[in-house]
């Protein structure tokens, strides 16, 4: 078991082995200059960035300058309203040198920012065929998730609660079903507001967590990044350690079957 706690427990996606199971983001920071310290303190090895925000020509306002080259870039299709737009953004990202990982976000409802499962499946099929490592952001819906796996998704990224809400694992039971049923990694994305919630997701068996708003909106984002890194590690260790079963009552003795063993004692 100890082997799993170290390099042997790497998360494999798209041919890469990740020893950190915390994915981070680049949005909502008061300054992009925080990003290197967020990466360093959290240990995160994957960072998502909205292509809409990247200005490759700018010498000053370019978020990419702040992302260490050792980190795997996960461009996302923020702003896409349908599969066609997501596909075009993904191709632009790859052409701009952002690699072949893509987080598909297709959002056609700006009030709740909930992902559009149908369009996401369409985009996933097209991009997986083009050689992208596709990580789609979804509602934790088993049928959509299965369709995504069939379409070639490398992992699925179900939301814990609405994006940016910091409300935690409101969709806990649905995520549990995905973890039980899918053969691809389940990465909890969106809604995680506290390190304890990330820890819980990992204890449940999530492969990783993506956390952005909870870190960016903290009073001390760097310290919060460190806390999330520790929480995700703790949750993963707990999952591997095999948590004991939950009971509703204390069970120090065996009131119903204890008589069977009285003579033997």
């Amino acid at each position, binding site marked *: 078991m100890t082997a799993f706690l170290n390099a042997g427990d790497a998360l494999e996606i798209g041919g890469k082995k990740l020893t950190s199971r915390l994915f981070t983001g680049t949005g909502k920071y*008061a300054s992009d200059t925080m990003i290197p310290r967020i990466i360093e303190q959290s240990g995160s090895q994957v960072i998502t960035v909205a292509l809409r925000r990247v200005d490759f020509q700018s010498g000053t*306002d370019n978020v990419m300058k702040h992302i260490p080259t050792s980190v795997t870039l996960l461009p996302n299709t923020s702003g896409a309203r349908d599969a066609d737009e997501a596909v075009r953004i993904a191709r632009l990202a790859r052409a701009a040198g952002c690699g072949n990982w893509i987080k598909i976000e297709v959002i056609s*409802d700006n009030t709740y920012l909930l992902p559009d499962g149908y369009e996401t499946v369409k985009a996933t099929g097209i991009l997986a065929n083009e050689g992208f490592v596709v990580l789609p952001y979804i509602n934790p819906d088993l049928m959509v998730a299965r369709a995504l796996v069939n379409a070639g998704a490398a992992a699925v990224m179900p939301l814990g609660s609405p994006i940016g809400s910091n409300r935690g694992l409101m969709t806990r039971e649905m995520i549990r079903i995905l973890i039980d049923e899918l053969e691809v990694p389940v990465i909890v994305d969106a809604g995680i507001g506290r390190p304890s919630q990330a820890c819980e997701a990992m204890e449940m068996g999530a492969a990783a967590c993506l956390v952005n708003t909870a870190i960016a909106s903290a009073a001390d984002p760097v310290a919060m990044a460190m806390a999330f890194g520790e929480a995700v590690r703790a949750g993963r260790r707990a999952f591997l350690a095999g948590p004991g079963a939950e009971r509703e009552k204390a069970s120090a003795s065996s009131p119903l079957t204890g008589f069977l063993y009285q003579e033997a004692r």
Partner: protein
Amino acid sequence: MGFYDVYKQWEQKDVDGLLKSVTSDDVLRTLAKTRLHEQDYLTLLAPAAQEHLEAMAQRAHDQTVAQFGKTVVLYTPMYLSNYCVNHCLYCGFNARNNISRKHLDAGEVEEEARRISETGLKHILILTGESRTWASMDYLKTCVAILSRYFTSIAIEIYPLETQEYRELITAGVDAMTLYQETYNEALYDRLHVKGPKKNYRFRLDAPERACEARMRSVNIGALLGLYKGRHESFYTGLHAWYLQKHYPEVDISVSFPRMRPHTGSFNPDYPVDDVNLVQAITALRLFMPRAGITMSTRENAEFRNQILPLGVTRMSAGSTTVVGGHTQKNQDTGQFDISDERTVDQMALSLSSLGYQPVFKDWQAIKA
């Protein structure tokens, strides 16, 4: 049913009376809700809500940071033409005003674009007066083709178009539109717009919906504050935004709160909106529509813009001029109105950073097929 029907329904309800009937307890109950509806929005715009302005402001700030982070998207306006056929009593471009009229040719548009892009801005807002002769669809498409080489987001603030025309401009590279209804009060609108195509209240009112129908990515609306009672105008602006978001959930809906500024002509606003009322309007809108963008232009002065930044603002203009060709040319007598915040883009970016906000130069990537 379009937004006009919603407007008509509320007009029959005596909005003045409803605003006056709101109590302090009503406001507290509303502030305790997690999701607000039309009546709640009206409650937050009522005079009784002013004693709770700090609580509204704090919640608006929290909502904004949660939704948008500590970021502000920057853009600048580029006036292409001030020829206008309308006779609107309050506007500096009024066809009857004796001002210099100018229209940028393709070379001048390119020069303006080059100069503005040197500041790092990627979002541009192009404006024209209403003249299908001087600002024709072909002219606009030519300008957009030039601007696409310098900017990743091109917004229009021009006369209202038909749905098909919006589609054509989207195909050309436009992704956002701004259109102010000026006043939602239909009778006053008729009096203020003496002559010209702008006299058609319904055609203007329905234009944002036509843009949504055409799949514009972002639609920004507002009323020109000062023409009529501020609470009314804010209420109908918010209702209009709410209506658009409900019917076109895929569109980014945003709202501006432009207060009237001095300009050529002698029109003085009958209903000036003071700072307290403006803050109430901004915070109420943020609580009503947590995801809506809120734009604050350089009509407001630097100090006030700095102060209201945390209350819900998500977009600001910088390095602004309302003069046709004003980014490159010396002739400064063609402006629509005087601006109040004359900070350059660099100064604006530094100011935002010092206030703990990230100035965002690029928040959209053109994805033409």
